[in-house]
């Protein structure tokens, strides 16, 4: 298991809707803020790259010392009204799963993203969940942490 790993999901409005520190390293007090800072700083890079490739898994797009940022961009989350589409095209249409990690296990990270993506779809299908709102489900949290232990 990776010593440092921070996982967040960013909604299409650039709002973080889920965050988890899943590394095994002893927690430093400022670590959470630092990780958040690095991940948020990488958002612009994600946006640039996402338009140039059709791949969903973007590995190691940014680094900070020994920490690496990998991203999994979900497919276009369409809005149905056309004038909305024009506006939202200027920002971003994707939900992004972002992982900050120090391991080099690309296959594991990819599998992790794919399985979390499936969990995220299940959350989206819950009629009582409002898309774009915070994911408060403890079930989801437990599953994500289990996946992190398995793959990272």
């Amino acid at each position, binding site marked *: 298991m990776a010593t440092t790993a921070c996982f967040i999901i960013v909604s299409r409005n650039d709002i973080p809707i889920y965050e988890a520190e899943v590394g095994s390293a002893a927690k430093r007090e400022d670590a959470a803020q630092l990780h958040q800072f690095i991940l948020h700083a990488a958002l612009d890079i994600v946006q640039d790259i996402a338009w140039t490739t059709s791949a969903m898994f973007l590995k190691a797009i940014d680094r900070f010392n020994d920490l690496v940022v990998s991203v999994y961009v979900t497919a276009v989350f369409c809005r149905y009204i056309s004038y909305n589409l024009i506006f939202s095209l200027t920002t971003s249409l994707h939900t992004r799963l972002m992982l900050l990690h120090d391991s080099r296990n690309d296959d594991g990270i990819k599998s992790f993203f794919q399985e979390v993506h499936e969990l995220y779809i*299940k*959350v989206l*299908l*819950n*009629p*009582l*969940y409002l898309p774009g709102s915070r994911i*408060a*489900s403890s079930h989801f949290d437990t599953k994500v942490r289990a996946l992190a232990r398995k793959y990272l």
Partner: protein
Amino acid sequence: MAPVAPRSGDAIFANVERVNAELFTLTYGAIVRQLLTDLEEVEEVNKQLDQMGYNIGIRLIDEFLAKSNVARCVDFKDTAEVIAKVGFKMFLGVTASVSNWDADGTCCSIVLEDNPLVDFVELPDTCQGLYYCNVLSGVIRGALEMVSMKTEVTWVRDMLRGDDAFELQVKLLKQVPEEYPYKDDE
């Protein structure tokens, strides 16, 4: 006494028109979601779902009787079995079981192990008092009322609240005698 035929809804279920399960689940979810937005109070949503179920039930019973060919039920026990085995199978595609009879045979539990309405659903903290499937209790109440049985249907167990199954308690309040609708002098 000879058992009343048929005892399972499989044959009828195979012949009725069906819709995609996810379409069905998500449509119901959208209704509940909208009710929560419109009514704001969880209690009100429960009431409204029950009322909607009642309105479905009083119509659904006709379709049920027309398609299922069940013979007249001899007692309430018989009725509960038919609801669980034929009714649920015919309209939801699942089979329920009947248990927990009380001594005088007027109160029992219908237990659903599997419920297509709640696929994907997880109750968030803001809707803790919600009986998500309250429409089902309304359907049973409405349907039984049309065959002259006043009942009270309540949820005892709910998987969304962490129980291991769905359990509906059906209590027979009174049997309304059938009335001849015309008076002699009219």
